[in-house]
């Protein structure tokens, strides 16, 4: 069918977002969802590369996707709104000069927890997960390889991108111990962990900040999102066009449309993720702008780390993950 096909994370745009896009451009659209970066790549590799027009991969996976010939270059002439971006997002480490991607949203991986269960003055710490003595109730961890392991490495005081074998071995041991704890309530995708905390099935979960914030906004006296004091993962999601996209024109139109100041603000106001769009900032809900859970403070920023592509060494994390899950 003649429509724009977007493959994107779940709960990553307001409900009327695509309708507005259609209203503005006359282009019909269809949205399909995924829950993790790896799932996205697997989907594209399994034939999706010719099925979708826009995908929203995260920073560290972009290099992999380029290497696998899954992405095509952007035609900047069709993207005047690239100018709206923050300067830091015009020249990122993972895609200098926005050759393949344009940023969508950015955020962190942190803790959503139930204040009623943990106390009002609880200071978010991943010890709740990893330290046997600090465990207090069922917790959900995030089903995302690099981010989950990254957070665990941060708890250990290591870099999220380490390839030191002994560090990794220790990481595995810690994860396996955590997993075998009676408080471990499973690995869930971000929204899934969020739902479990909201449903009362778990007292805390490792989730993406925006997903958590929407729950927090609904019940601010019950739920809190915070970046753990040990540090966490920061990330940016980016719009990109698969190599075999059937409607490259629509894709550019869409990306440009998202980069529009108003649309960008509408997006972030709903998702409650941070916007990379400088021009949009003025339309962003002021409370969000000042919310450290969405726009972390400078000090917090120092504790956060970007995940990077490790090339051949990605394999360590893959095998480690398989090992942890299967134990």
């Amino acid at each position, binding site marked *: 069918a003649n429509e724009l096909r977007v493959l994107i994370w779940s709960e990553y745009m307001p409900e009327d977002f695509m309708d507005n896009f259609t209203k503005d451009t006359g282009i019909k659209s269809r949205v399909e969802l995924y829950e993790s970066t790896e799932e996205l790549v697997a989907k594209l590799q399994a*034939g999706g590369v010719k099925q*979708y027009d826009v995908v929203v991969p995260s920073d560290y996976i972009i290099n992999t996707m380029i290497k696998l010939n899954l992405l095509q270059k952007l035609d900047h002439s069709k993207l005047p709104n690239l100018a709206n971006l923050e300067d830091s997002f015009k020249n990122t480490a993972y895609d200098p000069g926005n050759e393949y991607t344009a940023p969508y949203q950015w955020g962190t991986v942190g803790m959503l927890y139930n204040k009623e269960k943990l106390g009002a003055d609880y200071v978010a710490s991943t010890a709740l997960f990893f330290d046997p003595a600090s465990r207090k109730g069922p917790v959900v961890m995030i089903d995302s390889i690099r981010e989950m392991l990254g957070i665990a490495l941060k708890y250990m005081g290591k870099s999220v991108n380490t390839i030191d074998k002994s560090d990794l071995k220790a990481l595995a041991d810690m994860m396996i111990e955590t997993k075998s704890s009676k408080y471990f309530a499973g690995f869930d995708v971000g929204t899934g962990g969020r*739902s479990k905390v909201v449903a009362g099935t778990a007292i805390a979960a490792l989730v993406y900040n925006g997903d958590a914030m929407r729950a927090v906004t609904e019940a601010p006296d019950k739920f809190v999102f915070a970046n753990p004091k040990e540090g966490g993962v920061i990330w940016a999601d980016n719009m990109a066009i698969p190599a075999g996209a059937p409607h490259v024109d629509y894709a550019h139109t869409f990306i440009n449309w998202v980069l529009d100041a108003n649309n960008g603000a509408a997006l972030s106001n709903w998702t409650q993720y941070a916007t990379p769009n400088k021009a949009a900032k003025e339309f962003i809900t002021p409370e969000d702008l000042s919310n450290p859970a969405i726009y972390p403070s400078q000090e917090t920023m120092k504790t956060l780390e970007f995940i990077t592509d490790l090339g051949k060494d990605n394999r360590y994390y893959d095998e480690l993950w398989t090992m942890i899950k299967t134990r």
Partner: protein
Amino acid sequence: MFKLNMRYKILAIATYLFLYTPLLAVMVYSFNKSRFGIHWGGFSLDWYVKLLHDDLVIEACINTAVLAVVSTIIATILGTTLAMGLARYPWSKKVMTFFDINLYLPVVTPEIVFAGALVVAFTCLRYISSIFEPGLVTMIIGHVTFQVAFVALVVRSRLASFNNEIEEASRDLYASNWYTFRHVLLPLMMPGIVSGAMLALTLSLDDFIISFFTAGPTSVTLPLYIYGEVHRGITPKIHALSTVGIFVTIALVILSQRISSKDN
């Protein structure tokens, strides 16, 4: 006659309860007002209303039905001719073994391995033609691949159950090949064909894995949709959808029993 010990009777009924508890839970919670968890927030039909207005759900329903019906029709035709070819010709032992292995392979291959094999197959075939891009076509192909074997096995055993004399009697009574096929073989095979088709339909409706690995953006089916939603946190909308699914199943079961009891 034989009388069943009370203890076993209770155990049997408890087993039924065990089978139905989850289904009942789904039904009950489909009327729950509150969005998350098992906290009962009051009775509500909202979720059913929401279903009706969800284009994705409706599309998933249509996809599920199209996939099941189309694959069943193809598999029934292929499976029936295959069964006739197998049962009605004196294949040598070696040839027959080869056929049998292929026929039983879809039956005994673990689904997940089957799915892996299909992923490999389609990845290669995609170089040949774009119809193998993920989507309804590949899903149908995947489903037919296991359905056809089941249909063929059921029809073949049906064919084996009536002896050659029936067919000889038909020739003896001046019937040509076509007349024999149309008026003797086909009607006699019919119960087998119908139950084979029913089995194929069930298998298609019950499948998740094969669909999971072969679906494309426009071919999401109900099980896939539900699976995705379950990972994001179950909501009463999913319960409502599942409840509808359960009732469709009940209707199908009753319908198929009607058909098969007529056949006998």
